[in-house]
């Protein structure tokens, strides 16, 4: 079967500072963060193979400036590298049996959320989808749910405790693997990586076996996606999307039947 893995960097174990994630240069801090995330991906991949020996796995590195060390990434899987410049649905198709989201952080504004943000950590205050606040996890899970005739289910989420809670609130059946407990914007108590890896392997296998019983987040169209910027930031970048309407100085909205045509 085909499986899709979406990764971000801020939710990985032992990652808790912006200077590990925001920098474009491959500093020692960034290299370390990439190695930590890549080890988590490899553990989840191993779990998928445990459950499905014929697994065909595609990973999309969804972190803007890249969160994966491609030299350490499992060589059995296909890859779309880096986050910027690629349009939704980011290589995900209705043929994928399930989506796994690794390295997930909580949405912008989450109290005590480590590296909490929504898309742009510098500019975005909040996203709402059909009136409900969503982070990257929620937005991508809903988008996956719109694909094809039944939607792709989000079957496993790993990240800090708050990202896992966010996932469970949206998808009660989803498998989760906490990597750390958020203690503040740049502070966390990290679990033992070895425990995280063995949980990821086990839970990825369990999630793959249960995938048919995990419902996609299937919301009915039309979709109203609203983005609100932090003070001092405008919405110019969003206005190039079809149907985008400016609501006020720092708020923009689009109403659509096709979420993949938006900035989701």
């Amino acid at each position, binding site marked *: 079967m085909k499986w899709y893995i979406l990764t971000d960097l801020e939710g990985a174990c032992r990652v808790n500072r912006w200077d590990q994630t925001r920098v474009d240069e*491959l500093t020692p801090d960034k*290299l370390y963060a990439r190695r930590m995330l890549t080890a988590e991906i490899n553990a989840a991949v191993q779990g998928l193979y445990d459950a499905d020996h014929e697994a065909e*796995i*595609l990973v999309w590195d969804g972190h803007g400036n890249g969160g994966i060390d*491609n*030299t350490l990434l499992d*060589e*059995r*899987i*296909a*890859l*779309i*590298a*880096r986050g910027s*410049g*690629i349009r939704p649905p980011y*290589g995900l198709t209705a043929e994928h049996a399930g989506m796994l989201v690794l390295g997930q952080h909580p949405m912008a504004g989450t109290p005590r959320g480590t590296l909490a943000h929504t898309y742009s950590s510098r500019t975005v205050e909040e996203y709402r989808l059909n009136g409900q606040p969503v982070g990257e996890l929620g937005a991508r899970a809903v988008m996956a749910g719109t694909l094809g005739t039944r939607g792709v289910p989000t079957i496993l989420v790993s990240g800090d405790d708050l990202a896992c809670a966010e996932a469970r609130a949206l998808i009660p059946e989803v498998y989760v693997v906490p990597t750390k407990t958020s203690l503040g914007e740049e502070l966390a108590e990290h679990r033992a990586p070895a425990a995280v890896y063995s949980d990821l392997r086990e839970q990825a296998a369990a999630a793959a076996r249960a995938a048919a019983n995990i419902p996609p987040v299937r919301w009915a169209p039309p979709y109203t996606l609203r983005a609100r910027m932090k003070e001092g930031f405008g919405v110019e970048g969003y206005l190039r999307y079809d149907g985008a309407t400016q609501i006020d100085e720092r708020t923009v909205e689009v109403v659509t039947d096709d979420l993949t045509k938006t900035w989701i």
Partner: protein
Amino acid sequence: MKWYIMTDLEGACRVERWVQCDGSELHYERLEARRFITAEANATAAGIIDADPDADIVLWDGHGPGCIDPSLLDPRVSFIPHGWRIPAPFGLTSEFAGAFVLGTHSRAGTPNGCLAHTMAGNVIGYWLNGREIGELAGRMAMAGGLPDGPVPVLLVSGCNFACAEAHELVPEVLTVETKLSLAPERAQHRPPATVHAELRAQAAAAVHARDDIPPFVVPAPYTVRAKLTEGSSLDWYLRHPHTTRIDEQTAEQVTANLYETWI
């Protein structure tokens, strides 16, 4: 038998950005990229040796600033490093039974071609006897035009566009796709383990199929044309023999000898 491998970098699996390919400094991204193409070269060499245990393999690193990590290259392979320090035909002679072209990218101007280019960033296009060519066609024509007899290119690996171009030139050539080109600096990469397994299997198959894969032969004399972007200097091109300026952006050379050309 003697087998020749030439490598470029931009077409390797998990390589998709200029920062991985350019510059003289061996920073981390370039080191990564070198490892990827070197693994592909090793898989190919292993396949050649599977089919011909006494294979005498010479590898020419055809990427300008170099792309092979010598410390990881299969020690059974002879090695000519660093692209441009050696004149054409880059160690290739008619004694070789066949050539393998790895890490191939699409030519300049290919829509959505990942790292598409022809030689340098200021090249709009090259033409050989009126046909638009990229580096792949140039190298295949060079191998097919050796004075003591043509050498067939048996196997080409690279992005989907590069493989398609190889089939257009010689339908019988074997190909291994490393990735699907999506944009100038973006691709969907196949699993390296699959790419390596296919390279090994197809390299062995290419050795066995050697007599059934024709060389790419372009009849002499050769008319080679280069068109550069506006404002680029044609000086380097005009230093080649039998070369004339067609217009501000275009140089043309007519010669009986392909190694006198810039392709």
